[in-house]
Structures are given as structure tokens and as C-alpha cells.
């Protein structure tokens, strides 16, 4: 199958690669480039485990073709911590026991950070609504909502929602 040359900037680092037209962004990230922090739960955009940021928006990378992402800025879980310091969302997920097996967690955190960076409401029902595209089978969500609530206050305190 003919391949296409594309460029992806992942967590600030530029990568050039060749992919089949049908290659999913998540497979390009994981299998071609080794960003395996992003997980695959359903390959049908229903579970959200594969959520990454594409030019600042949370997208499900199992339903984006790698060629569609050509030239875009991709943010993954590997890029959340900076300079050895956890992002507030990572800190809060640990503090609030917002994860158990950890498989949905990267996607859950990428959805939550996009939501909070857009200035999303910290009302608990609104947080639950914001997470509707991300499934977790372990936690029952309550501690995830606590984690997002707590991260929101840290992010508001540190840099403000933008």
C-alpha cells in the first residue's frame, strides 16, 4: 500500500514518518514512534482511552487517521509532566486515588486537561458530563471527579484557566 510522508510534532518534538493512508494516529504514535502511554480500549471512539491533544483539542486518536494529523501539534500523556514536575492533573489523580489499573488514565487526564484549560466549570455534574467520552471500569468515577476538581483549583491557582 502506498505510504505518505507526514510530520507530527509530539510534545514539542518534530517527527517525520511514512504511514499507510489507513494508519490510525494512535498506531502511528504507539507502534511507529513509541509513544505507548496512549492506550487503545475500543478502536471505535467510544471509550476514550486513546484521547490525545491535537492542536490543543482533545481527540480520540483511534478515529483520526495519521495523515489527517499531518502538520499538527500532538500532546500525549508523556508530555504532561515538565522538568520532572507532575502536571497538577497527574498529582491530583494520585492524591485522590483517581486510578486503579491505570489503563484509561492517560486518556482521562488528556480529556480533563483540555476541559480545564478551556475554562470548564468545576461543578461536579459538569465534570461528569465533560468526561462522558471516557470510560473507566475500575474506579466508579467518584475519585476521578475529585481529582479533576482538585486539579482545577491547583491550575486556577498556578496559571489560571486559559
Amino acid at each position, binding site marked *: 500500500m502506498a505510504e505518505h510522508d507526514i510530520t507530527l510534532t509530539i510534545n514539542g518534538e518534530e517527527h517525520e514518518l511514512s504511514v499507510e493512508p489507513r494508519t490510525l494516529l494512535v498506531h502511528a504514535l504507539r507502534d511507529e514512534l513509541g509513544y505507548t502511554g496512549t492506550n487503545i480500549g475500543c478502536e471505535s471512539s467510544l471509550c476514550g482511552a486513546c484521547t490525545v491533544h491535537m492542536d490543543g483539542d482533545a481527540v480520540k486518536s483511534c478515529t483520526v487517521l495519521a495523515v489527517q494529523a499531518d502538520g499538527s501539534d500532538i500532546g500525549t500523556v508523556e508530555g504532561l509532566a515538565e522538568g520532572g514536575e507532575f502536571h497538577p492533573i497527574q498529582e491530583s489523580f494520585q492524591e485522590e486515588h483517581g486510578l486503579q489499573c491505570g489503563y484509561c488514565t492517560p486518556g482521562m487526564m488528556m480529556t480533563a486537561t483540555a476541559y480545564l484549560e478551556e475554562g470548564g466549570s468545576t461543578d461536579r455534574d459538569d465534570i461528569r458530563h465533560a468526561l462522558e467520552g471516557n470510560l473507566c471500569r475500575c474506579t466508579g468515577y467518584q*475519585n476521578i471527579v475529585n481529582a479533576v476538581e482538585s486539579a482545577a483549583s491547583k491550575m486556577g491557582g498556578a496559571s489560571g484557566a486559559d
Partner: protein
Amino acid sequence: MSVKSVDPEEVDAAEILGSAIERREDPRLVTGEGVYTDDIQRPKMAHMALVRSQYAHAEVKDIDTSSAEEMDGVAGVYTFEDLVSEETPGEGEFMLPVGWLLPDLKQVAYPVLANEKVRYQGQPVAVVVAQERYQAHDAADAVDVDYERLDAVTDPAEAVSGGAPQLHDDAPNNVAFDFELGDADAVDDAFASADATASLSLTNQRLVPNAMEPRAAVADFKPGTGELELEMTTQNPHLHRLLLAGVLGFPEHKFHVVAPEVGGGFGSKIHIYPEEALACWTAMLHERPVKIQLTRTESFLTDAHGRGHETDVEVALTNEGDVLGMKVDTKAALGAYLSAFGPAVPTFLYATLLSGQYALPAIHCNVVGAFTNSTPVDAYRGAGRPEASFVVERIMDVAADTLGMDPADIRRRNFVPVDEFPYQTQVASVYDSGDYETAMDKALDMVGYESFRERQEAAREQGRYLGVGISCYIEACGIAPSELVGELGAQAGLWESGTVRFSPSGTVMAYCGTANHGQGHETTYAQILADELGVDYDTIEIVEGDTDEVQQGMGTYGSRSAAVGGSALVESARKVVEKSRKIAAHHLEADESDIEFDAGEFYVSGAPERSMTIQETAGAAYLAHDLPDGMEPGLEATSFYDPENFTFPFGTHVAVVEVDPDTGEVTFEDYVGVDDVGNQINPKIVEGQVQGGVAQGIGQALYEGAVYDENGNLVTGSMQDYAVPKAEHVPEMRLDETITECPHNPLGVKGVGEAGTIAAAQAVVNAVDDALSPLGVDRRDLDMPLTGETVWRAIQNAEGGA
């Protein structure tokens, strides 16, 4: 009411056991560093994909692999004949074993690849190996299988009722077993003397486990050494090694099984499936690493499903509300073949819990296990125990309604009294300890039960339907002892193994045969050992999930890890302390009986300045220059802990709901749980386990259900059609606890992994039933899941189809 986590650095060593410390697993999981099976890459790694039957029941007439073999990147396409050929690796019969036998169980052959017939949709028929993942799936699509379709049956009651399509020649009428427990004559006597009876027919619907990580495996064979390595999504690597070694005919000592990070299991990763065996076989055949990553669709079709019961239950009552006897008749779907522990789940894990929290004088249960043209059924979170608690707690409400009693009062009247433990039930179980009334009272108090009925009445006058549902559940964890489970049919022991090893510098490595897949064992086991050994939490490393590193093990399921694995580690730690005590006595020139041990330090009784730390004894043990006469060097111990009984956690969950009569929609006003899981090692982890368990129980009550059509097609085969609860679907839960120690293990712990799931479903269904009670709804119309449509139809039927 949420438990507040603390940083382990801020906890005194003496307080570490029982503290809600943050998990040490989390940093690698929140950064993406954790390595799950599909993250593994190996040089020359090939990919595997399965050709699966699209039919639920058919004869396989011909398999044409020629087009697939010609495709780009394809290394080979294989069928059952290739597996058992003398030209290919593996001396095994390539039949999946069953791990639990029952009297007269029909043990039907379950081939790794279908050889003559397929009996469920999704059953593997052929396997493809290719260079790339996409190529393997393309080639699997190109394999041409010629089927002759047969009629299918998926309902267990229909399957065994006579005249249904037959699955196996060796199992007439599709009956796999006909199991009885209890005393039928005593139950007949109870009914003969009863003032009243209450009965209920119910379905406990089939569920799909849906761990977020679909199953996966990477197998690698090294021809130079003859070693086979299998990294896989497993809850029990040693058990998988043993069973797969048998399937493949491969020597166990050359077989290395590893559980990397595992993304949830809920039972589905206990069992033995065709795919992992095929990954091993193709890796041996091609002498290169082979990966299989199942898709979500494949998970729906092939991960062992849970539940699937059709049950009739009836109780004999006095007018005062005493339950004199209970009879239960269940038809349990087993699916097309016997999954590893499939026969145990609807029998010994179900019928033995039918006394609930109650002192029932007579119980009889009959369970017929039915072969059906559907995915094999096995343990899914709770495994038999949710089905039992559902039956008991639903019939208690029906009984209360029959007698005009309050549902709390009939429960209170029949509880096993607190002074009657250990309590021998009429269905074999001996409950270790309990205080059922205190837990129920606490839960009722939390929801304001006293005033609820007035609010309910006032709401009804406004046309609003509120309901409260009580669930007093009982669980059995840490199935044991091994001798007993052997008598019941288990083909394995159910001990657990733990090793504690000091290094010469005084740090600790501990190895346990359980397998973490979200439970936080690395944290909780280190808490246990920090307390036992009196050493710093940070100086302890926990190793699980690797057959080359961990001596032996039975794995993580049935809420057994803390009670059985934790106890094995405690036993080993105590052996280490005893050896250290001898070393300390020798160095301190005191009699061993005069040496005290406290907070990691040995000292001479009455002379605390003469002391030696446990780390110093470790140094001395490895230096071995000056040890007591006859003592071997080194400081480590291994235990195989075999509990004397199950543990029996319990509690009361209460749901308060409102039902919209116009839409049938159920919304939560409140959800509380009071759980007694014995001593708690880490209350934050306990809370997380309960919350997650409740979400799965609510999922069953309101949203989830595997549905087959009449041809055996799984029509709920994706997350689009099968509703795994989302954040919005799960209410805020208010949790509390009582603590009744387990009297027979060294930690006093009972287990918590399944409690929420066992508790929740009937709390919700009872609440909906209560809400609708003024409408005269037929309880048969309230089978789960109580979707808006189901509830709306129940109301419509009650109103005469208005």
C-alpha cells in the same frame, strides 16, 4: 465522607498499616511509563489475528486458506490439523482444560481451534501470522470458511427443556451438570408448616466484563535454550503457565509467564483462552516473537461472560416474619464450552451463599448448568455471589411485601445473631464472624430511613415516585482451604505463596503469587511488611506477576489477595523475625527468650540499650562470620499459606431513587454503603474498590446486558450497544464501614474486591420496585437492566397498556 489520602513520607512507621497512603504504583501509570502487553516491542516480532466464526452453531465443512497465504506479509495460516500435526511443535492435544469438576459433569472437548463444529459466535477457526498488525487482520478476513449452519439456542432454560438444538453429543439435552445443595425434605417440611409463602421468578442477565484493556499476549520462543516466554494479560501467571503447559504439551520449567501492567480484569483474565495458546504455538513454529492484541469486538465475543441465570425462588414464612425455608431453582448458562472455572461459579460460589445474612433453618437449591450457543460463562466480578445475594435480597423484599412488613424489619428478624458466630449455614458455608444489624442500622441511619417513608408518601401525593432499596449482602472471599476445595472439585489448591528476603544492606524484597491489575498490592503489601518487620516502607520492594521471579502462586481473584497473599507474606515475615531474633540473641549474648522485638529493633528484655536492628541482623546473616551454631547464612523465608476457611465480608447498601413514570427513567437521590471487610490495610484503596464495585453493580441494575438473537448473534457486541456506565450514570456514593475482624488469618482482613458489585444491583432494583409499589407492577417486568424502556413498559403493563 471521602477518605483523605496521605503521603507515605508523613506517616509514622508504627501507623503505616491502616493508613490511606497514596499508591506507589501511580507515578508510572500517570506518566505513561507503565508497560502494558501491547506496549511491548520485540525485534522480528510478528502479529497474529484470528479467523472467527460468524455463526453461533455450524459445521465447518472446509477452510480455504490459499488466498490469505498469498497476501503481503503473511507468514502462515493454520487450522486445528496443523496444531496437532506431528510436524509442528507441541506435544499437547490443544484442548482447553476445565479447572473445577462436579459429579457427573459432562466434560466436553474445547479445541483451541474449532475442528469440526463451531458452537459460539467468535469461536476461533484459524490463525494467521503476518509481519504487520494490519496485514494479519486483512489476511484473516481473506480466509474462506465453508459452514453449514445449524439451529442455535442461547437461553439456558430453553436449552435444557427438551427439543432444543443439541450442542454436544456427550451432553444429552444440553445438561452439563445437575447440582443440588441443601436439604429438600427439611424445606418441604418448612413449607408444610408455613403461614404464608412468597415467590419470585427472575433473570440475572448475562454481562460482559469489559476490562478497559482487551486481552493481549506476546510470546517468544528461544530455540537456543528451548525457553518459551509469554507476556500476557493475566490475573494468575503461574496458573496460566501450568494450564498452558498442559494444552501445548510444553515443559513447565522452560516456560516463563509474565504479567506486565494489566489493565483491569474483573475475572476475565483468570481464564484460559485459545488466543494465548496460539501465540505460544505460532512463536514456537516461527521461532520469532508473536503478538496478539484483541480488539474490543473480539473481547465482547470471547472474554468469558458473567451471570446468565434464570431463577425461581420461594420462601416459607410465618405471619410474624420468620423465614422457615427457602427453595431455589436455577438454570445457569455455561456457554458453548466449559470455561476454566465455569462449573464452580453457579454451584459452589452461588448455592453456598443462599443463606445470605440470615439464619435460615432450611434451604434447598438445584442448579442445572446448560450448554448454550454463546460465549463461555465464567467468573466475572463477584462470580456467583452477586447472583446469590440478588436472589436472597429480592425475595426478602417480596416476603416483606407479602406479610405487610417493613423490609428492614424482616431482615432484622432473620439476621444471624451476633453471638452465633462461627455460624453454620444450611448450605455448607460456615460464616467466620459478623455483626449484620449494626451495619444495616448505620446504613439506614445514613439515608434517614425513619423519615423516608413520610417523604415518600408526600411525594406520591404529588405524583412523584421515590423508592428505597436495602441490600444486606454477604460475600465469601479467599476460597480455601485447599483440601476442602479439592473435595468440592477444584483441580487446584487455593493457598498463596509469599517470600520475604532481606538484602545484606538491610532492604527488603518480597515476592507474592498474587497478581496486581489495579488493586495496589505493591502499596498494601509494603504497608503490611513495614508493620511486621518494623522497617521503612520505602525500603521494601514488592514483586508479583512473573513466574521466574516469584516461587509459586495462585493469582488474584475472588477478593483473595489481602486475606491469602497478605497472610502468606505475614507468615514469611514472622519466620524472618524469628531467625533474626536468634541472630540478635547470639550477638547480644542473651537467651533468645529474653529478646524482645519492637519497631524493627531487637533488645534484651530489661536492658533496652543492648539492641540490634533487624537490618543489622540481615547484615550479620549474609556476612556469616559469626552466626549461632548450625545456622545457615542468609535471611529470607517462604510460606505457602492455606487458610482454614473462607472469609465472609458483609454490609448493607441502600439506594434511594426516583422513577419518572412518564419516561421510566431512574435517578438516584442517594446511595450509601456500609461495608465490613474486616481490618483495612489502606482505607483509600478499600474505598476505591467499593466505589468501583458499586459502579459495576449499578451497571448491571440499570444499563448492562449481553443480548443474543435467536440465531446466537451477539447483538450487544460493542460499546455502542452495550452500556458500560459513564461518569454521569454513577451516583455520588456515601460510604462508611464497620470492622469485624476475620478471626482466622493473621491480618484480620476479609477482602473487598467484589463487595460493591455483590451489594449494589439488588439495592437499586429493590428501590425501583419500592418506588413503583403503588402502581401494581408485575415483578417479572422488572428484570435487569432497568432501562427507561423496561421500567416504562412495566408501568404500561400495570396500567393495562394505557
